[in-house]
């Protein structure tokens, strides 16, 4: 059965195969184009370096008018990621637009003057990298005092060393988790 959502997801997949952004990979499950697995690699030169983090993207027939539900399967420790792996990120909530495809969800195109052709950065990678960015994009929860993971948020601002240690633990867990 081919619906508009499924047809669109096939094109998303084609683009992701032909022009894969650095640091991420993703593909639909064999029997179900509506459910994707993705992996993002922790950015170099950050405490996430070396980690491989698994996610799932669940699409509905309303895609691309509605965003997929994106969730980390790997255990995470981050102010903007809930205990169940769901992510607090504006483009996955109230700032969603059909201009984002799967590659763009995992890789957003940074705007600069003259359009979208500027340098790429990975939204989710950057989420790991730069918590300030997350605060700025945190339209779903504009109050920095009630983040998705309050322990991680508090540690991030009060005890960066301990925060980084916890992140390294998560990175090491990502090697052994199946």
């Amino acid at each position, binding site marked *: 059965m081919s619906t508009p959502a499924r047809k669109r997801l096939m*094109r998303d997949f084609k683009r992701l195969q032909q022009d894969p952004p650095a640091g991420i990979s993703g593909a639909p499950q064999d029997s179900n184009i509506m459910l994707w697995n993705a992996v993002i690699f922790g950015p170099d030169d950050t405490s996430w370096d070396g980690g491989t983090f698994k996610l799932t993207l669940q699409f509905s027939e309303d895609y691309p008018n509605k965003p997929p539900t994106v969730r980390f399967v790997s255990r995470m420790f981050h102010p903007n990621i809930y205990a169940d792996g769901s992510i607090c990120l504006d483009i996955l909530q109230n*700032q969603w*637009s059909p*201009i984002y495809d799967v590659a763009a969800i995992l890789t957003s195109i940074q*705007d600069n003057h003259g359009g979208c052709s500027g340098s790429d950065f990975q939204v989710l990678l950057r989420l790991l990298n730069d918590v300030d960015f997350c605060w700025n994009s945190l339209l779903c929860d504009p109050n920095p005092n009630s983040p998705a993971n309050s322990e991680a948020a508090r540690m991030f601002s009060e005890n960066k060393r301990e925060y980084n240690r916890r992140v390294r633990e998560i990175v090491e867990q990502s090697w052994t988790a199946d």
Partner: protein
Amino acid sequence: MQRGPTAGSMVSNHSRGEPLSTLAAEYQSGSPILLEKIKVLGDKYAAIRRTRGDGNCFFRSFMFSYLEHILETQDREEVDRIKIKVEECRKTLQSLGYVDFTFEDFFALFLEQLDDVLQGNENSISHEELLNRSRDQSVSDYVVMFFRFVTTGEIRKRSPFFEPFISGLTNTTVEQFCKSSVEPMGEESDHMHITALSDALGVPIRVVYLDRSSCEAGGVSVNHHNFVPAPGNLPSATSVSSESINPFITMLYRPGHYDILYPK
């Protein structure tokens, strides 16, 4: 702001809108200025068609009004004209770096509606079917999104023109504004959206303002503003002088919401 139409309907279901008296009824125990203004409106306008107050009301009103106009006039010259503008919008998005497959379905669906309101084709539709489609989420939302793509393309393309308005209103960059206030569904439209859509497609739009403002002297009057695209972009049927221009799309603006107005 959620206002007006019955829950569930995107465009109200009357064949030629509802009489303006239904509008007056809403304010019966309310502001005398508004009631006075609605009376003045009644000199020129016969009916109102309500659209769902879901933040897409401007685009949805535009969609219905424009397609209804084509259905009623069968103005093939206008259809040919707007198709050229649509192709220009496509090129604009491409040149701005948008990926084709993220917007092509939305373009295709709008072009299909344009062809279908022209009679004499296999797929020609009636006024009733136009109403049905405007109320069908899978068609209606796609066409709304098409207009959002057109609007964002125009604003970004003419970023130096729009920048002062945007920074004055929202204190953000043009790109941020488009990302947060134009491209997502459900984000309300302001005069920037209207200007950009009107310019990009070359379709004049009249907006009639129904608010509590009043001038002391000389009794109550109702303000309107014509959004008139640059000459050369205009439909062939409209006269070129912007003073005397008579847009075939008229919307009633009440703070936070747009509906369609029908002239007498």
